[in-house]
């Protein structure tokens, strides 16, 4: 069984290999195309060297200081090093530092983010990095530090994102929404013939929201569209996946009772 650095003379190389990555982005390896004098190769494995199949296409990630950091991953430095050791792991891990969850632990080379492992193409890594996995709520996962949900407003040209953990109550949420979407309502006001007042655009939005012009709805984790405000705040943030400021005329999917509630609120 090979130990971590058991093979002769490799100690330095392993360290080197992990501390000094190769950033082939700077390389500009080129095949001379028409006009140039470079020799034309018959083999096709040219250009950025194929480092390891399925891996980052020969573009080895530059690792800073022995904690090999993969592009697109945010990991391991802060995590408890003791999570690494599994009962099946028999190799000598006396280089493993003791668990110190509060500060980033430079994990030993074998257990740290190894450059280029697992071998996943950079295209895939980049694509996945911008897609948080849709985790099953049933998993006992610690609550994330932030809870970003998309917020759309009917008629607005683009959506916004807000972190629900920034707010403690429906009122907080409501005023935040007013601020966020006020810029979209100016034209609405004009179209609906609301007389221009000295009020800020925010209050115009508030008027619109609290009038029966718009309804604030959210999509819960079952995929149903619900009226905001029925359940306790914590329950709401737990189940809210996205928000939609819906034109009342569009709110045909909502139960009639919900519409009643909405109107009675105003």
């Amino acid at each position: 069984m090979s130990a971590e650095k058991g093979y002769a003379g490799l100690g330095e190389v392993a360290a080197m290999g992990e501390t000094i990555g190769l950033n082939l982005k700077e390389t500009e390896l080129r095949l001379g195309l028409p006009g140039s004098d470079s020799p034309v190769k018959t083999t096709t494995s040219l250009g950025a060297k194929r480092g390891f199949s399925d891996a980052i296409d020969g573009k080895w990630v530059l690792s800073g200081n022995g904690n090999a950091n993969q592009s697109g991953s945010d990991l391991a430095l802060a995590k408890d090093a003791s999570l690494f050791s599994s009962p099946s792991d028999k190799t000598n891990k006396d280089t493993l530092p003791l668990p110190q969850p509060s500060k980033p632990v430079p994990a030993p080379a074998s257990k740290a983010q190894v450059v280029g492992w697992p071998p996943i193409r950079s295209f895939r890594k980049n694509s996945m990095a911008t897609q948080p996995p849709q985790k099953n709520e049933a998993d006992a996962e610690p609550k994330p530090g932030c809870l970003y949900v998309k917020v759309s407003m009917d008629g607005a040209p683009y959506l916004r994102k807000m972190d629900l953990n920034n707010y403690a109550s429906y009122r907080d949420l409501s005023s935040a929404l007013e601020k966020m979407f006020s810029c979209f309502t100016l034209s609405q006001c004009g179209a609906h013939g609301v007389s221009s007042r000295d009020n800020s655009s925010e209050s115009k939005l508030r008027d619109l929201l609290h009038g029966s012009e718009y309804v604030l709805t959210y999509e819960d984790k079952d995929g149903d569209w619900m009226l905001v405000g029925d359940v306790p705040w914590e329950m709401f943030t737990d189940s809210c996946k996205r928000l939609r400021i819906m034109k009342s005329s569009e709110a045909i999917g909502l139960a009639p009772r919900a519409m009643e509630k909405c109107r009675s609120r105003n």
Partner: protein
Amino acid sequence: MAGAYPWLEEIRLKRMVVSDESLEIIAKSFKNFKVLVLSSCEGFTTEGLAAIAANCRNLRELDLRESEVEDLSGRWLSDFPDSYTSLESLNISCLGNEVNLLALERLVSRCPNLKTLRLNRAVPLDRLPNLLRGAPQLAELGTGAYTSEMRPDVFSNLAEAFAGCKQLKTLSGFWDALPSYLPAVYPICSQLTSLNLSYATVQSPDLIKLVSLCEKLQKLWVLDYIEDDGLEILAASCKDLRELRVFPSDPFGLEPNVALTEQGLVSVSEGCPKLQSVLYFCRQMSNAALNTIARNRPNMTRFRLCIIEPRSPDYLTLQPLDDGFGAIVEHCKDLRRLSLSGLLTDRVFEYIGTYGKKLEMLSVAFAGDSDLGLHHVLSGCDNLRKLEIRDCPFGDKALLANAAKLETMRSLWMSSCSVSFGACKVLGQKMPRLNVEVMDESGPPDSRPESSPVEKLYVYRTVAGPRLDMPGFVWTMDDDSALRIS
């Protein structure tokens, strides 16, 4: 090239740096240019694409798969003239920004032979039905972002549009997939032969519903959200399956986040008699499972297993996985491609050298004990073409003893192994028909003792001699015994 082959019709490049200038030259020099495939390339922008669009009257195929394109504007698509109708295949899935959707719709609907259309993520789902209606003859589709506000009218529009594509056999894309929109493809599931859901972060139940309808499926790429349960259903539903790839949803996490184990792969190997190509990322494996898979599927030709934690032993017996992989090479007599992982000693290489007679490509990482391992492979695998090795204790002896073998191979890659600089020099001197390239960012290799190991070694045969365009950290060992440093 433009001067020499003015009638050049096809250019296919992989992992190359391609400039806008080059694209312009291509666009203007080759009157009958038909096919441009740039796979994992980089260095060009949408301006270069505009040149291609504007000038290549006979272009049939433009495929930018996984390239990194500097996306300056989506306007380039409008540069295809209105008279241009010969497009058969378009893959823009790598582009970051929105293309001109109207131009895309018009292009798609005026090209009657368009068979392959792979959109990028920025094409919104509610524009997909129009595109599909413009090309009902499509055989391969890559969707854009597969999510939208859940609206019944959008859904039914989409489902109808899919149903109208009677030739559609291949589906991919599905970024940001919203599970409630997946049923829109149900009408065509029974005709699908290839499905790439590897960007769809949906959970097992939704995946199962979809996959179980695809009775003709031959190829499935999916994330490990499918879990063992899903793979069991796959095994029961898709008897024509030939290729399975399961990618990790959380490759850098320390704990498993899904219930996917070796069992999923065993199920598929049992239930799918035609399964011959596998790429499987998982977190545990056993010799018993590998043995079962090998006996179930002697027709396997490509087997790539990535156990995420390096040097993981058999989780049941805590032994190396030598015997399991040994069973694979022994029973799968037509195995052409193999990737190893887990805890492995020199013994697995002995098996590979003994049985892997048809093996053409082998990938090895964190494995073996000594030079003997490498020697077994180089001396035993008669058909070996490509060998890539990282972090293994293989050194000079095996390499030099099998130097002649390297001339029969396409290439050898070794990184973080124990090959010394001195040995590389010797190899370069003795084998003039090989390019022996050493990559080392810490400085010229001759600034260190000859016995010190090189970071990366790349050896390949050549009829054209050493390269002259290498960057500063690549050195060719050649027969001058002097380094040629570029």
